[in-house]
Every structure is written in structure tokens, then in C-alpha cells.
């Protein structure tokens, strides 16, 4: 596709979190996008394109960031990209209702490159609260094009596309970013450093003035790179002396100056901005974040969230299940009719169709789970739940954002592990990556719901389910305390978190948010589950025609059960599904189905063959015993370490064996 278009334009989207940057990106690129990682970094890189007048416009959506200092990898990646990749245009997305804050990034970027345009988004919301923005006045003062847009309005898309085309092809727009002048003292220092840089003929891809500003700010990343090649002791001595004599806190002085310049610009171009008034969000927060109600409300919302996921998906799952078994039956009969060899029939029916079924069956639950999360996220509640949970999480040495990765993990651990990216503290992040597989994903929810329903009265089943979930959360939190003992203590960054305004969730945003997360599951887990299903079929079919206990899987299961039966109460027929569940947890149910459906319904057979302690032992064991292969791959790609990946595999197994043995031995003794 790309090769058909000779002319390609590279356009970058940059902006604060929650300014609707991704919504605009999605509107412009539609389904022509893919998500990847920056090489060597676990930072998302979203790329998409659109074609206008036979020209290829490639759009890169950079991670949401507040500034271009070197506080995080995101910010370093962003500024590297802008200078090294030399995009045709950098578009700063800003929020009309929070103009000063969201233009701060524009001011920073203007020191880095000239090719900047500013899109002021959410103008519809601004209009509603009586804000009027004069974009011509902003253009005059900033020296770059300023567009007023709204991600809810299709007309904006057409205007943006036309703007991008014209900006590249015509002289209609001017790109002369205004030079920000700091206070005289600072300007003198900048000049002095700039001279030093030029005198030493220091050569980087960054503009000299920008380097000088960064050196003044004490930017670690810039200083490190420069110090590796040049001796800058003189420069720093000079800066420190000056700063001391002028009593300047250089760390924040330049940000402060930018804000004060910005304040003047915004004040002259915006009318109707009301500061320090109780907004609608404040009123809602009085209830949602109330010291007595916040936890009950949180529990009700999350309980509803899990119940809806479970009950809304079960009729769909049953429907798909019915359809597949009908289809499988028809195919099997047809294959028998045309006299296909038994092994081929078995491969197609029990291997391929069963494999596809295992993938299909989990799509509804995953899609519903992540669309509900998207609703919470888009409305502004998800950020608040991290805020509320911060108090609880801090008791375990974690921050509120760690709670979100746990919530995500209940859908699919791969998504949960990827959600740890918002955790800024390295120790917390590693701990949450390694322990995320303790949290039962949708696949294990299936096993838990199925088995508790067979063995226990409904109220007892519900209680047991809650206990199992509670236990898995306990393991994650306790492990964090445990890991805290081994990692070297670095000062954790205190909680600083922007709370987005409450908004009515928008269908488009929910669609894209759901699609990116459910897509991860469908793509990654889909292939894993399918291959695992074929593998299971192979293991349990060789030698072909033998009874289950004489297949490869049977021998393996019997070998392992010499240890697991006395210790955990798991006999060979129980070991096999767990073994198959290691690559993909979805396989547990299908393996149970194959092994226990001979001679009657699976429910009756299971009830007759397992004792209660055995059933509980099985439930407890499958709850936490090992991450699936897709989750392991995610651990590896997020930590970039084989050692930690190995830890992520063995740690849950050891913990599970210890706890399950204790529980089984006690139950076996008393019952």
C-alpha cells in the first residue's frame, strides 16, 4: 500500500493526557492504524495514516505527556523523535477548557522545532461554559498556526486534513515560533551557555538555545549525553555561582517563566475564563471521593462491573457454544460420511474446531469487560478509583495506579501486565508485572464459575468465588511487600496525579479503547490458544486410538501425580488439564471436558470422581499456578529480562504449591 504513494508526509501528534488527542487521531486515521513499541522501550507507539489527493499522510500518536523534561521515558522518547525523525509537522493538541496548562507543552516544543501547529480541541465544551477563544490573536503571539477543532464534529476532520495538506504544500501558513524571552538574568545565563556550546563546537541534533535551557534546568539526560564527550565543569560552576548569587531555583524557574508568558498570551486571547469556581466535577467529587462514601461507592461500581461482565456475556457464550457444537457435529458427520480417516476427523473436530472454539468463547467476555472499563475510563471514574485506592495501596508500598493494572488483569493478564506502564516506580512496576498472573483472568473465571457451580450450593459457590478472588488480591499485595525487601529502596515519587473532568462517555472513544485492548487479547492470546489446543490434541491422541491414560498426556499426568496426589490431592486425571493449562488457561475447561465426559454428563462424572477437598484443591491450584505463555511473553517484553521472566514463571508455581498443600492437608484432615 505504502509503496504506491511516492510522497509521504510524517505528522506527529503531541499533547497532555486527556485532551482528546487519541480521539482526533482515531477520527483521522480510522482503522488504518497499528500499535507497536518504541525500539528498546516499553512505550506505546501508535501509527496510522490517511490518504489525501493521492498523498500518504502518516500520523504518529506520541504518548500523552505534560512536558518535555527528562522525567520519564515517554518524555525522552518524544523529544528524540521530534529532533531525530524530523517530522514534517508537529501538531500539539490542546484542550480549550484548560488552555494555559495544555499550551505549556506547545511552548516547550517551540524551543525544539519550528514546524509546529496547535489544534485546540474540545471547543464545543468550551462554548458550553461560555469560553471564547480568539485563535488569530493566539497565532499572532505564538507565531504558529492555531486551529479550533472538536473531536465530536466530523467537519473538524475535513478541516484538519485540508490544513495538513495546505501547511505542507502552500505558504498559506507561517511557522515562525515566537522566541520566548525569559527574565534578563536567565537570558544572560542562556547566552553565556550558548556561547560555551558554540565555542566548544558541541554538535547535536538539538538547537543550541534549547540545550542551554535544558542545561540550566539541570536536565539529567541532556547533561549526561554532553558530559560523555565534553568537559562541562566550567559551565556548571558558572551556572551554580550565578544561581546562588541571584537566589534562583533553576529547577523550576524556567517552567515558571513559561507559564507567566503563557498566562499573558492566554489572557489576551480568551474571554470568559472563570477561575476558582466550583465546577460540576467538584460537586460530583464531593460524593464520589467523600471520606465515608468513596469506598462503598467504589465497591458497588466494581461489583456491578464484574456482575455485568459475567451475566451479559454468558448468554452470548452459550449461544456461540451451541453454534460451535452444532457445527462440529455436522462436520464430524460429514467427515464420517465421506469416509475420512479417523485420525483426520479427530484432528479437525477435536483439534482445529475445538481450538477455534476456545478462542471464540472468550471474545464476548473480553470485549464486554474492556468496553465497561473504557466507559469508566472515558467518564473519568477510572482515574478516581486509582485515587481512592491510593490509601489502601500505600499500605503495601504501592501507588494508586498499581490498582488499575490489577483491574485490567482480571480481564486478561497480558493487558494487566501492559497496564503497569503507568506505574512510575521501577520496583512497584516489576512487582506488579510478576504478580499480575495471580489475578484470575476471564479464562480462569470460567473454570471457577463452572466448578463451584457443580460442587456447591449457589450461596456457597458465590462465597467461595469471592474468597478465591480475595486470596489472589492478597497474594499480589503480600508479594509486593516481600519484593520490597529485596529491591534496593529508592525514594518513591510522591503521588501527583491530574484528575480529569467528568464527561459523558463517548461511543467512539469506547469503541477505540475497547478495540485496542481486546485486540491485544484476540491477536496475541488467539494464536497462543489455537496452537495450544492443537498441541493438546496431539498429546492426548498419541498413540492414536489408545485410552486417555495410555496417551503421552496420560503417562505424563500419571508420572506427576505420584507427587501431587499425596501432597495436593490431584490425581492424574486432574493433573492433565492443569498441565495443558500452562500455555493457555482456556485449555483447562476443554481438557476437563475431554477427560470427564465419558460415561455420562461431565457434571455427574466430576461429582462422582472428586471429593470436596480435591475440588477445592483444584480450584485453588488453577487460580494462581502459572502465567500462560502469552502472559510470559508479555513479562519478557515489559521487563526485557529473562531472569525476571523466569521469576514470573517459577514464583507463582512455588507459592501455589505451598498454599494449596496447606489448604488441602487441613481440609483432608477435618472432612
Amino acid at each position, binding site marked *: 500500500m505504502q509503496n504506491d504513494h511516492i510522497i509521504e508526509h510524517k505528522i506527529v501528534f503531541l499533547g497532555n493526557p486527556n485532551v482528546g488527542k487519541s480521539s482526533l487521531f482515531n477520527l483521522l486515521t480510522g482503522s488504518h492504524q497499528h500499535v507497536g513499541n518504541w525500539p528498546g522501550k516499553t512505550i506505546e507507539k501508535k501509527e496510522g495514516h490517511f490518504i489525501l489527493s493521492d498523498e500518504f499522510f502518516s500520523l504518529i500518536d506520541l504518548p500523552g505527556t505534560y512536558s518535555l523534561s527528562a522525567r520519564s521515558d515517554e518524555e525522552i522518547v518524544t523529544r528524540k523523535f521530534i529532533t531525530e525523525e524530523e517530522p514534517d509537522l508537529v501538531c500539539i493538541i490542546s484542550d480549550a477548557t*484548560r488552555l494555559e496548562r495544555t499550551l505549556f507543552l506547545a511552548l516547550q516544543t517551540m524551543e525544539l522545532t519550528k514546524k509546529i501547529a496547535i489544534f485546540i480541541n474540545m471547543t464545543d465544551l468550551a462554548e458550553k461554559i461560555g469560553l471564547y477563544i480568539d485563535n488569530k490573536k493566539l497565532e499572532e503571539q505564538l507565531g504558529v498556526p492555531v486551529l479550533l477543532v472538536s473531536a465530536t464534529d466530523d467537519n473538524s476532520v475535513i478541516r484538519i486534513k485540508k490544513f495538513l495538506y495546505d501547511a505542507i504544500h502552500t505558504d498559506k501558513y507561517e511557522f515562525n515560533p515566537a522566541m520566548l524571552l525569559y527574565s534578563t538574568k536567565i537570558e544572560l545565563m542562556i547566552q553565556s551557555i550558548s556561547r560555551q556550546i558554540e565555542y566548544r563546537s558541541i554538535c547535536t541534533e538539538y538547537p543550541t538555545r534549547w540545550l542551554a535551557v535544558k542545561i540550566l534546568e539541570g536536565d539529567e539526560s541532556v547533561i549526561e549525553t554532553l558530559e560523555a564527550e565534553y568537559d562541562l565543569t566550567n559551565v556548571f560552576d558558572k551556572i551554580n555561582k550565578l544561581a546562588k548569587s541571584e537566589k534562583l531555583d533553576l529547577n523550576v524557574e524556567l517552567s515558571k517563566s513559561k507559564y507567566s508568558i503563557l498566562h499573558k498570551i492566554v489572557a489576551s486571547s480568551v474571554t470568559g*475564563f472563570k477561575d476558582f469556581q466550583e465546577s460540576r466535577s467538584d460537586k460530583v467529587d464531593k460524593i464520589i471521593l467523600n471520606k465515608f462514601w468513596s469506598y462503598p461507592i467504589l465497591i458497588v461500581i466494581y461489583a456491578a462491573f464484574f456482575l455485568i461482565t459475567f451475566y451479559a456475556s454468558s448468554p452470548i457464550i452459550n449461544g456461540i457454544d451451541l453454534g460451535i457444537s452444532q457445527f462440529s457435529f455436522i462436520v464430524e458427520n460429514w467427515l464420517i460420511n465421506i469416509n475420512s480417516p479417523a485420525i483426520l476427523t479427530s484432528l479437525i473436530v477435536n483439534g482445529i474446531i475445538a481450538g477455534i472454539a476456545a478462542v471464540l468463547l472468550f471474545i464476548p467476555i473480553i470485549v464486554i469487560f474492556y468496553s465497561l472499563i473504557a466507559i469508566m475510563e472515558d467518564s473519568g471514574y477510572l482515574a478516581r478509583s486509582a485515587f481512592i485506592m491510593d490509601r489502601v495501596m500505600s499500605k503495601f508500598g504501592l501507588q494508586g495506579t498499581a490498582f488499575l493494572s490489577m483491574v485490567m488483569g482480571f480481564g486478561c493478564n497480558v493487558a494487566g501486565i501492559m497496564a503497569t506502564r503507568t506505574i512510575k516506580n521501577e520496583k512497584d512496576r516489576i512487582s506488579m508485572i510478576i504478580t499480575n498472573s495471580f489475578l484470575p483472568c476471564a479464562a480462569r473465571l470460567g473454570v471457577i464459575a463452572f466448578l463451584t457451580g457443580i460442587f456447591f450450593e449457589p450461596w456457597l459457590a458465590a462465597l467461595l468465588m469471592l474468597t478465591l478472588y480475595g486470596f489472589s488480591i492478597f497474594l499480589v499485595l503480600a508479594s509486593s511487600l516481600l519484593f520490597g525487601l529485596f529491591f534496593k529502596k529508592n525514594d518513591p515519587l510522591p503521588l501527583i*496525579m491530574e484528575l480529569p473532568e467528568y464527561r459523558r462517555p463517548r461511543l467512539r472513544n469506547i469503541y477505540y479503547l475497547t478495540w485496542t485492548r481486546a485486540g491485544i487479547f484476540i491477536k496475541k492470546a488467539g494464536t497462543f490458544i489455537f496452537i495450544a489446543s492443537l498441541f493438546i490434541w496431539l498429546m492426548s491422541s498419541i498413540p492414536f486410538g489408545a485410552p486417555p491414560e495410555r496417551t503421552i498426556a496420560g503417562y505424563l499426568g500419571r508420572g506427576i501425580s505420584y507427587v501431587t496426589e499425596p501432597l495436593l490431592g490431584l490425581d492424574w486425571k486432574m493433573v492433565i488439564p492443569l498441565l495443558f493449562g500452562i500455555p493457555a488457561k482456556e485449555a483447562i475447561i476443554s481438557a476437563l471436558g475431554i477427560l470427564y465426559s465419558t460415561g455420562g454428563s461431565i457434571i455427574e462424572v466430576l461429582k462422582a470422581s472428586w471429593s470436596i477437598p480435591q475440588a477445592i484443591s483444584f480450584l485453588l491450584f488453577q487460580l494462581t499456578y502459572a502465567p500462560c505463555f502469552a502472559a510470559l511473553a508479555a513479562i519478557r517484553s515489559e521487563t526485557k529480562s529473562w531472569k525476571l521472566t523466569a521469576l514470573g514463571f517459577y514464583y507463582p508455581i512455588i507459592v501455589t504449591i505451598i498454599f494449596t498443600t496447606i489448604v488441602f492437608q487441613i481440609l483432608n484432615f477435618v472432612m
Partner: protein
Amino acid sequence: MKQLLLLIDIDENKIVLVKEISAGYKAQRFLADLGIHEGERIRVTKNDVGPVIVEVKGTRVAIGRGLAIKVKVLLEE
């Protein structure tokens, strides 16, 4: 001369002038990038249990109590 107070002791809905932040480099930077620095006026929107929430430049920022204790402010009438 009015007395400097700690952000953590400010009642809800009060507007204050930030005078001094004595936190670590990164925290100080982050706050400055969000517009919270010496000389800025902010409004406390929530302060009972858990992090303090302040309004700054039309946005709401939650600040952990451990950090809020390091922010010295001047109460405005």
C-alpha cells in the same frame, strides 16, 4: 507579615498563594510542569482524608499528603 501555612492544613475552597516547595528534584519539576510553583495561586478543592486536591489553571491535581506537607502557602482573603 502573614504566617506561612502548610498546604495540608488548608481548608477546602480556600485560595492560597504557593510560597515554597521543598520536595525532591523530580517532584518539584513535575509540580512546576503542572503549573504548581512559587507565586502561583491555587484553590484547595478537597482536603479531608487521602491526597489533597487543588485547582490550578482550571485543572484538578491530586497531591499525596506526604508531599502536601512540604508545600508552604500563604492564605488569601
